[in-house]
């Protein structure tokens, strides 16, 4: 009963949905029909982006409204969501993760580090940005990016 009461008392906390994205989703994503399974790979992140991703899939921003869903294996996924600069130890696992995903597949680079190594550029353990290791389709800037930016990037893939 307390659960039901909690639901009644709390009400709806989700942000109102922004308008649909203007542009068409990328060619590879059109086949997915608006239902996108996302595998998140931490390639060496400071965990700032992870907190924002967690918020993006939480009740307030609720990315699942738009057809994106986090899954537990690249075998189930259409999109690899990669955070952080790619460290030496994670370069090969990242390549294998992307290779393990079925076609058509996309790579979403989240955060400044994923786009250009950000703060960690030139570090001795850093292999490079995500784009240096696997081809990137969509990028989200920010250190860390706000949840609504991440949601917007996901909506550009789902098209909803």
């Amino acid at each position, binding site marked *: 009963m307390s659960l039901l009461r909690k639901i009644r008392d709390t009400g709806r906390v989700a942000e109102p949905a922004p308008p649909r994205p203007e542009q068409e989703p990328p060619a590879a994503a059109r086949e997915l029909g608006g239902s996108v399974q996302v595998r998140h790979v931490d390639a060496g992140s400071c965990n700032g982006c992870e907190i924002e991703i967690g918020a993006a899939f939480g009740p307030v921003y609720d990315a699942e409204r738009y057809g994106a869903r986090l899954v537990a*294996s*690249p*075998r189930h996924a259409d999109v690899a969501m990669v955070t952080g600069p790619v460290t030496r130890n994670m370069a090969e*696992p*990242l390549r*294998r*993760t992307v*290779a*393990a995903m079925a076609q058509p597949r996309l790579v979403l680079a989240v955060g400044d580090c994923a786009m250009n190594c950000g703060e960690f550029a030139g570090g001795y353990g850093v292999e490079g940005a995500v784009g240096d290791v696997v081809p990137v389709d969509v990028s989200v800037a920010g250190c860390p990016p706000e949840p609504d930016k991440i949601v917007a990037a996901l909506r550009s893939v789902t098209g909803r």
Partner: protein
Amino acid sequence: MNTVGAALAAAVGFAAVAAAAGMWLPLRARVPVAGACTAALGAAGLAAGVAALGGRTWSADLPDLLPLAGVHLAVDALSGVFMAVAGAVVLAVGVYGIGYAGGHDLSSRGVQAVLPGFALTLILVPAAASVSTFLALWELMALTSLALVVAEHRQRSAVREAGLWYAVMTHMGLVLLLVGLAWFAAGAGGESFPALRAGAAAMSPTARNSVFVLAGLGFASKAGMVPLHAWLPRAHPEAPSHVSALMSAAMVNLGVYGIIRLGLDLLGGGPRWWWWLVLATGAVSAVYGILQAAVATDLKRLLAYSTSENLGLVLVGVGAAGMFNAAGDRPLAALALAAALLHTVNHAAFKALLFCAAGSVLHATGLRDLDKLGGLRARMPVTAGLFAVAALGAVALPPGNGFTSEWLLLQALMHGLAVPGVSTAIVLPVAVAAIALSAGLAAAVFVKALGVGFFARPRSTQAAGAHESPPTMLAGMGLLALACAALALAPGALAPGLVRAGAAAGLSDVRPVSGEGLQLRLTQVSGSLWPLWIAGALAVMMAAVSGLTRGLSRRRRRTQARLWDCGGGAPTPRMAYTATSFAEPLQRVFDDVLAPEQDVDVTPVRESAYLVERVRFHSRVPDRIEHRLYRPVLNGLSNLGIAARRLATGSVHAYLGYGFCTLVTLLVVLAVMQ
């Protein structure tokens, strides 16, 4: 002299030639000649057994062969079953042994000369027809097998310990038999089996009960029944594999033979509680044996415990037969006995093959530890296939050969509920549950043995370097596999022989089972089975499923992809299931019964107690009955020995004093008793 006598004479002749060849031929000729003669001896024994099953009887008195008592032999259909089983196993093992014994200690004069003797006693024990002949052959069998068990004592010290256990336990069994049968002979007024049969009715119930319990304990220890099984999981793994096959498939059966011959035939049935005891022992052994097999990691030890389980199932059948007989339901008793005998035959076929295949693995890799094996299917495909055939028989699922006999056994027990009495109403459902539990666990055990031992990737360099066995070993195993297949597809052919064996055991002339063509039909109760149809239907279904999946997969485009390994390295053999990890859930379920021991030993570095240098994890499942029952006795005996050492002070005067005191005491006792 009819067929049986001629075949037995031929067997004795072949045994003599084989022993002489083993003793005197040079090394290169010794093993093939002795092996061929042993195989011929087995074939002769098989012929004698089959002829006896066909209804021929034979008896002979050789008064000059043994001093005082002479030798009395008689063969009927009941002897025939055990003789044929022993003969068939000896035939296959003789061929197998030629390849197996090549090389090391096993080609020595001693082993090659003793093996035919052991094989001959296996065939002759069921033919004995007097107490003295039986005991002499029984002891000869124990001694020759003991010599063979310790054949490899130079290589491993465990062999010596196993030999000691076996020697002590088999001779304690002999003492029980000796006391029981001598009591019987004294009470019945004659030591030949006909005299015992005639005199048993006149004995007092106490004497008959004592005879059955004493001799039954001796026989049960030979059959590896809990709690007298302690020798079995030691002697079977440490003996050379072809000897293990002989012991496990032919020798332990003679314990069952003894119980049937003594209880049903010579003592003529007896009260219900005897058979209640036999059935309970069998059921407990079946469940306990298969549980221990489930957690065993040594392949041959696993097979040894499985022997304990299967002989337990046989004794459940024998016990049920005795109970029904005591209740006056002869047809049902004959059915239960037929099921027990059929299971004996089936068990011999698949267990001999399993031990030979385990020997083949041992020959190729030098390993018995399932945790270190693996990947043998690609390296020894024939052995793996033969092991799979035998494992299918052992799990008691169709189309394996063990299925038919366990089905018969369950039929007998379920129809037995019609027999009046409170004890049957309680005992029979419990026995059915025990059989079901042991059959289920047996499936897990043999999936483990086959899957962990032969599939996946090799977990040691020895297993990676395995090679297929020589053709003679494969030929011997092939014979056994043929026997398994024949027993699985057409068990009906054995039905007339089993009926005659039941009649020879004193269950009169009812025909509980008949084999009409390919059908096995129960004539007294409703029930029939078409093993060939089941096998055919299964084969058709498997072909259909595999054809369908292939046909469907061919339409789609195939791509080669790397296995998803979470981005890390490729899976290593260390990640594969081992025998220990496979059995862990079962071990957890039966935690209270098995009482596994686990020990974690953490060694910190010298500088700080918080930094760990080494962690050692140790886990083992000791045989709990052995632990609880034998350890206190052994400790007590050794304490007694230490205490007795105080008597031996080294002083001659004290020793003279002991002699004097003993003499005086004896004289006083005699004077008082006079």
